[in-house]
């Protein structure tokens, strides 16, 4: 009986594992196959990899999408971490009842559905377009700005600051460091693991973001990888090999980070409940 249960468990988990992994294997294999072969259900590696990549990079403008996505994700990650950690640190270290109240109000913004603020944001950036063109609709700055300040990261860093030894702040003051100096020279280096976890999540969110870039980035030379994949996928005569190549490239950064830094990755994902 016990043995039977064991076997059933293994069979069940194996099916779950196969279902979870199969789409990954399929996209890797399909990346090397011709479109026709893919539609006919070929599941073996082929020899069309180079051709698929050539089409992707020369005819579909993957380079532009890669560059845009990278610029947006790197800047977003940097600013998200900076602003989020400054605030999380500020709320925890300089704690006052007033700030706690503000903090609770900020947390409410996590409940706001993006669809509800999308139109006003679009109109906001539309209004800016005329006066400050480099911040308006169809600029990378507009794609970045509304995404860099989120209550999630403020909360995340505040929770993590609770584990930061306050004595270090006092030690820094005694040392004659300014308050900002304490933050940059003591807090930041000691909290490296928290920053790593946050960076992974911020980068991933930005790299994969779809709806806001779809709304705000309109011209082809501004498009990001998710926009490109969506456009390719919606085409009437899709070249499956090329699309699969694009999907593999889009998935690669997050997959690599996941395999190299599993602990930080999971810690980041769960950051909202830790502490």
């Amino acid at each position: 009986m016990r043995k039977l249960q064991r076997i059933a468990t293994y069979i069940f988990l194996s099916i779950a594992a196969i279902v979870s992994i199969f789409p990954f294997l399929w996209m890797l294999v399909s990346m090397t196959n011709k479109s026709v072969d893919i539609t006919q259900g070929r599941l073996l590696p082929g020899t069309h990899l180079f051709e698929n990549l050539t089409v992707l990079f020369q005819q579909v403008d993957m380079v532009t999408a890669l560059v845009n996505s990278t610029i947006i994700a790197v800047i977003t990650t940097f600013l998200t971490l900076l602003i989020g950690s400054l605030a999380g640190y500020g709320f925890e270290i300089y704690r006052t009842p007033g700030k706690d109240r503000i903090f609770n109000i900020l947390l409410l913004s996590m409940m706001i559905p993006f669809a509800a603020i999308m139109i006003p944001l679009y109109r906001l950036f539309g209004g800016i377009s005329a006066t400050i063109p480099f911040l308006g609709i169809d600029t990378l700055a507009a794609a970045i700005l509304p995404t860099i300040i989120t209550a999630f990261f403020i909360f995340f860093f505040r929770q993590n600051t609770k584990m930061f030894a306050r004595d270090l702040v006092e030690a820094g003051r005694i040392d004659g460091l300014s308050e900002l100096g304490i933050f940059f020279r003591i807090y930041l280096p000691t909290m490296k693991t928290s920053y790593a976890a946050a960076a992974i999540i911020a980068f991933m969110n930005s790299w994969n973001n779809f709806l806001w870039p779809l709304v705000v980035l309109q011209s082809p030379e501004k498009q990001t990888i998710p926009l490109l994949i969506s456009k390719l996928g919606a085409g009437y005569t899709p070249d499956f090999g090329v699309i699969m190549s694009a999907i593999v490239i889009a998935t690669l950064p997050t997959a690599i980070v996941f395999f190299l830094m599993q602990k930080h990755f999971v810690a980041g994902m769960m950051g909202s409940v830790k502490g």
Partner: protein
Amino acid sequence: MGKAMNNTGSIPYTVKKKRKSGGLKKNYIGWFFILIAVAGICLFYFYPMVQALLLSFQSGMGANLEYVGLDNYIRLFSDPTFIAALTNTMIYLLVQVPVMIVLALFFSVLLNDATLKFRGFFRLAIFLPCVTSLVAYAVIFKYLFGVDGLVNRFLIDLSITSEPLNWLSDPLLAKLTIIIAITWRWTGYNMIFYLSALQNVDKSMYEAAKIDGASALQQFFYITVPMLKPIILFTSIISTIGTLQIFDEIMNITNGGPGNATLSISMYIYNLSFEYTPDFGYAATVSYVIVILVVLLSLIQFKVAGDNK
């Protein structure tokens, strides 16, 4: 991320001068730290929320808007597309979230068994879908579930069906495809929350239950579920908020079709604003329906599950 405070010893304690400024200056600088974040959240979250509320009482094409009172809200009730979008979204919510949470709980209980072989591999495999972007996996699912896609080939090979199923063009099957896709993407994500919570459950409780002759199922319902209640509540709220806003998958797997059979509220808002002749006022009204649903459902879930916290 808990190893932040190991190197206390490396800070040199050479006392230069004692800061004469006391609480006032520190308080002042404290506000400086949070200033950008507070301003940003007001500008990019709260201000748009107010704007959307004002918009929801206006109507007109593009930039020509005028106040129409409650007309938009009344229009909701007689708008078949909105009713379809609302119904679909609620179906996703009521079917997908419970199925996923039960599945994730089940996986986590199985994987929490230390005597299980290949535990790490199974955990990794089931978590893996989380690394894909929503657009990427949506496009993959669209092809997998196409008429001549691999899912149909597989079903025909196993003689489960003799003819290919119209996964994407049958109203019911299209909804099912969306539900399968979301479940594939998010089950592992929920599982890791439960797995980490299970680490904190006292093993002796299970030992005691076994001695008392409790079956595995009884242990699950009388120990595991009650112990994990707070985290189940948390994940169900997160999933509810996420599902109410579902957009990427709908747009990329079915584009709302066939007809409006898979259209979600977010997708309808997008269409109203950017696909049809833009009607920002009415789109804002529809968006407030999501806001109201998020608040209501979160409150209900807290009420239902929150009594022991």
